């Protein structure tokens, strides 16, 4: 979906991805024809509410969708030149940790409680950096711990001896130990207090810069996006509805998807004095139903008949893309569309 003029060399290229969850009772359409590109060293913020399909996208990239339930129905995921959708389980094992890593929301459940944190970080090196000697490995573990602000003397301790913020930092150290090309961070600070969140974000930012890791930062917090990301993709009901540089998304310009506008209006802002918030009315549509038109239509104030029956194309202005008919008719932009299978 990105024009060629931007820096080539994408680490990740997702095209027309469709992911469904199939159970006995129903089929959930979690990701519906999504295309995305992440360049080396770039941080993409993936914003959206619960159920937008953010985590499903990340799990698809890792090929960790729940077995026998989650299926990639269509599309390709090219990660560092390798097509993940066709890769064998063995090939995926080599990729994970080495080329792509993921940080989960809850640090309490992502660490093994009966293994010391030093061993847990060393394990990844042992699996992927087989040429390292034991001594070199230990040195690397010490260095990682120093970088995240935990004294290497504590590497013999167990996860329960650390606080939530420290545990999340340890998880980050594990994820970055092999210096992967791409880091998937799925709401890494949601479970943390705000002062600790600020510390963790700070460490993530400095490590990313140091290792030049491309990152997909999944969050629902536009504040975090503003503070950490270069590019932003707004997701709604399994689709990207708006994509652009950070400055595009946060611009006061009226060229925005109505959902993005709603999202901005509904966040409580400590800088505003408005006594009331303006929520988006209604809820996200039922993901078991396939839509002909725009999925935001039923909650949108600008909805027309066309929105209900026809899929809006991406309208591109200077790399800032909005998927809405509001801007399609002014003739200014020729829309580069990838109309998806209905």
């Amino acid at each position: 979906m990105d024009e060629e003029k931007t820096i080539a060399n994408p680490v990740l290229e997702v095209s027309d991805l469709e992911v469904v969850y199939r159970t006995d009772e129903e089929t959930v359409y979690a990701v519906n024809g999504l295309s995305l590109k992440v360049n080396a060293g770039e941080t993409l913020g993936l914003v959206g509410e619960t159920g937008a399909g953010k985590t499903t996208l990340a799990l698809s990239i890792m090929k960790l969708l729940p077995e026998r339930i989650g299926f990639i129905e269509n599309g390709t995921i090219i990660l560092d030149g390798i097509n993940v959708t066709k890769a064998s389980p063995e090939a995926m094992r080599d990729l994970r940790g080495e080329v792509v890593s993921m940080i989960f929301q809850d640090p309490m459940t992502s660490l093994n409680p009966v293994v010391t944190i030093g061993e847990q970080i060393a394990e990844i090196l042992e699996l992927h950096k087989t040429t390292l000697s034991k001594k070199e490995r230990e040195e690397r573990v010490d260095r990682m711990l120093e970088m995240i602000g935990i004294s290497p003397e504590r590497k013999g301790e167990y996860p329960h001896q650390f606080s939530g913020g420290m545990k999340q930092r340890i998880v980050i150290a594990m994820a970055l130990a092999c210096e992967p090309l791409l880091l998937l961070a799925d709401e890494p600070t949601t479970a943390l207090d705000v002062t600790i969140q600020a510390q963790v974000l700070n460490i993530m930012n400095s490590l990313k810069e140091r290792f030049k890791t491309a990152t997909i930062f999944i969050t629902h917090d536009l504040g975090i996006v503003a503070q950490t990301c270069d590019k932003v993709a707004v997701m709604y009901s399994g689709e990207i509805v708006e994509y652009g540089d950070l400055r595009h998304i946060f611009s006061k310009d009226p060229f925005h998807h109505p959902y993005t506008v709603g999202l901005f209006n509904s966040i409580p802002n400590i800088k505003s004095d408005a006594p009331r918030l303006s929520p988006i009315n209604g809820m996200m549509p039922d993901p078991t139903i396939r839509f002909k038109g725009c999925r935001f239509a039923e909650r949108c104030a600008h909805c027309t008949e066309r929105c209900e029956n026809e899929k809006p194309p991406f309208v591109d202005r200077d790399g800032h893309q909005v998927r809405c008919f509001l801007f399609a008719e002014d003739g200014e932009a020729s829309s580069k569309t990838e109309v998806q299978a209905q």
Partner: protein
Amino acid sequence: MSTPLIETKHLKKYFDTPRGKLHAVDDISITIERGKTLGIVGESGCGKTTLGRVLLRLIPATSGQVFYDGEDILSYNRHQMNEMRKKMQIIFQDPFSSLNPRLSVTNLIAEPMKVCKTVRTRAELQERVKELMKTVGLAERLVNAYPHELDGGRRQRIGVARALAVNPEFIVCDEPVSALDVSIQAQILNLLMDLQEQMNLTYIFITHDLSVVKHISDNIMVMYLGQCVEYAETNELFKNPMHPYTKALLSAIPLPSIAPEDRMKDIIKGEITSPINPPAGCRFAARCPYASAKCTGQDIPLHGIADNHKVACVLYENE
């Protein structure tokens, strides 16, 4: 001045642990006028939830007093307290675990009225449930739905309806929106504000999110390790935060703005210390960039800076 609806004096709650006394709530004195909202802000472990529960006598206080409309409810007997419970209710944080999964929406909302025996006939009960569902914005077709069929926003609306069922005057809202998505969060906050206006409700709004509390509160208390470190009228607090902890909390919020002046800065170091047998002195001193010898050794009292602003910090002692 009229009697405040809620008043606490030197309220304390200590928990016994194998390693000593855990000071969850330590000497909190607050007053809330009828129809107003007090926001209580602090990080996990600062005692804000415990304070809410002690106020409602859901857990017994260690010492201190709680006055409701001028009467000391901690001295009430069981029978008196049961009567009292109709006036004070609570909305819980997690709409996923606070509702019995085996009860339908009707039964969930009817339950408090059955327990408190506020309605006489079944027809009356049904009528009241319908009325409440309308008040909180739940569609009538959901009367027989079960919690698992509903999303977080709707479940939290049930939580609100349950709290309102017995016509309370005072509601403790314990992080009622932190488990919800932003767009839904705004719906519930607006609902709570509308209800307050219509029914002249008094709220305590407990949250870790300063930006949420700004919209709904008249006054705000900032807690750190069981103690109140700053108390101020809402606009005053945001305009003129004084305690270094309040400032740290404010500057740690990532702002949804890309203006250079809104970049995150001055990130506070360290983590919350143990609430078990804390030494005398300012509990924030270990993390405070302005800490000096004066901060340790003796407790720092709250003192008034202005009519509507109190702070517990040695930096402002001579003002």
